[in-house]
């Protein structure tokens, strides 16, 4: 009998993990390993790169090469890894703060370059690791440890930001919609180019508690109501959409070629030039 995917791709000796009861991070992580499994990529050629945050601990638990970096920089580290060896399948696990606050620049630049990384944003709308302050994805009005009067900063739409910066695969799902989450992550991995999957998940301990949203089970159960599919969204008015999170595949394009492939052509050309000189 084939080994269970947990046994093949997780580091059993590191479990149980450090995340709180009902934290959505575990669901996103599970979706990632299932997606990896589905694509059949070589376990020895995959590198999971993370920043710093609760979510960035994800690669502690997986049995691939793992690079736990500094806060906000995983995409920049990953760029180095991928460029140095384009054969590697490089997946970035990152938080909303890690990727869209301190790491916002690396996010948009890597998207612009269209380098072949798959970035999974564990988007729990706050900085979990430091105790629940607002992040660039915290909804307006929400309470956090640093927005006790209600948050006044508009939130990024991670997918729009990725798209506006040039990402060639962009999708969003939630920990409720695990099947599509797995599907999108798998598509992101197979996609040649910069892929972003905005994985909406919950931090019941901090964000959930302070906003009275209940425990993990309650929060996850609320997703169907908070979300609308991209297909459905097309039929709704701007006002109707205001409060909704759209889920689905936003971009899946192969029009722009991938960065390391383009660079490989530069090497070819340069080496030809050099040979010509001889």
């Amino acid at each position: 009998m084939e080994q269970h995917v947990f046994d093949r791709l997780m580091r059993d000796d590191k479990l149980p993990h450090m995340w709180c009861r009902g934290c959505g991070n575990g669901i996103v992580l599970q979706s990632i390993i299932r997606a990896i499994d589905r694509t059949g990529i070589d376990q020895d050629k995959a590198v999971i790169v993370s920043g710093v945050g609760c979510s960035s601990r994800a690669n502690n638990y997986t049995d691939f090469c793992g690079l736990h970096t500094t806060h906000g920089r995983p995409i920049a580290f990953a760029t180095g890894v991928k460029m140095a060896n384009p054969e590697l399948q490089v997946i970035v696990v990152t938080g909303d703060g890690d990727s869209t606050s301190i790491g916002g620049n690396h996010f948009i630049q890597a998207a612009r370059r269209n380098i072949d990384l798959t970035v999974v944003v564990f988007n729990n709308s706050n900085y979990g690791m430091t105790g629940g302050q607002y992040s660039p994805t915290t909804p307006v009005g929400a309470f956090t440890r640093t927005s006790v009067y209600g948050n006044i900063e508009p939130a990024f739409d991670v997918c729009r930001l990725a798209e506006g910066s040039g990402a060639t695969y962009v999708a969003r799902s939630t920990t409720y919609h695990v099947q599509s989450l797995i599907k999108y992550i798998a598509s992101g991995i197979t996609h040649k180019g910069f892929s972003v999957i905005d994985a909406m998940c919950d931090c019941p301990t901090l964000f959930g508690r302070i906003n009275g949203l209940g425990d993990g089970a309650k929060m996850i159960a609320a997703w169907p109501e908070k979300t609308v599919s991209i297909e459905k969204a097309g039929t709704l008015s701007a006002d109707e959409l205001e409060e909704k999170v759209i889920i689905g595949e936003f971009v899946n394009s192969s029009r722009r070629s991938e960065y390391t492939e383009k660079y490989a052509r530069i090497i070819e050309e340069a080496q030809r030039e050099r040979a010509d000189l001889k």
Partner: protein
Amino acid sequence: MKKHFEMRFGGTGGQGMMLMGDVTAEAAGIKEGKEILLTKSYGPESRGGACRSELIIDDEKIAYPVVSEPDVVLAMSQKACDSYTGDLAAGGIIIIDSDLVKSVPQRGRSVFSIPITRIAKEVTGKEISANVVALGAVAVLADVLDEEAMKEAVIERFPAKFTEANVQAFEAGAAAAEELVSGQAKKYA
């Protein structure tokens, strides 16, 4: 009275162990004018599993901010009891919520069993008052503390509308402790 006194309040997130530390520090430090030093579980550590606050009380400035031989440990959960009682000072006491702590690692120490949460429920109707009940008990059992100062600190800590309930809870805790001390506490056992 012992010059240097260490206490630890252990439980799980949501039981108000941090607040117990605050109130006791206020009572001993501000009301009684002692030197105090309070530390608490922090960060991820405090987000699940056992958590605690620790208070050092002294007549003189306190240099080292670590409780290493607590004179009093309150354990409001089994896990807290398991993790937090190992370093009890010689002659120290353990106070447990008798409904929540099933077994106390026995090493010949005084254990005071009080059904703290149950008393809270009975007296105020709310489990959340358990920490105030515990404060009452601690005020009695930790002889470094002054019961009146503690009660005052409790009262000041909450909005006025809770005063009555809190006083009741505090006094019930104190009474339960008194009974144990005088050897008569059979009622909840």
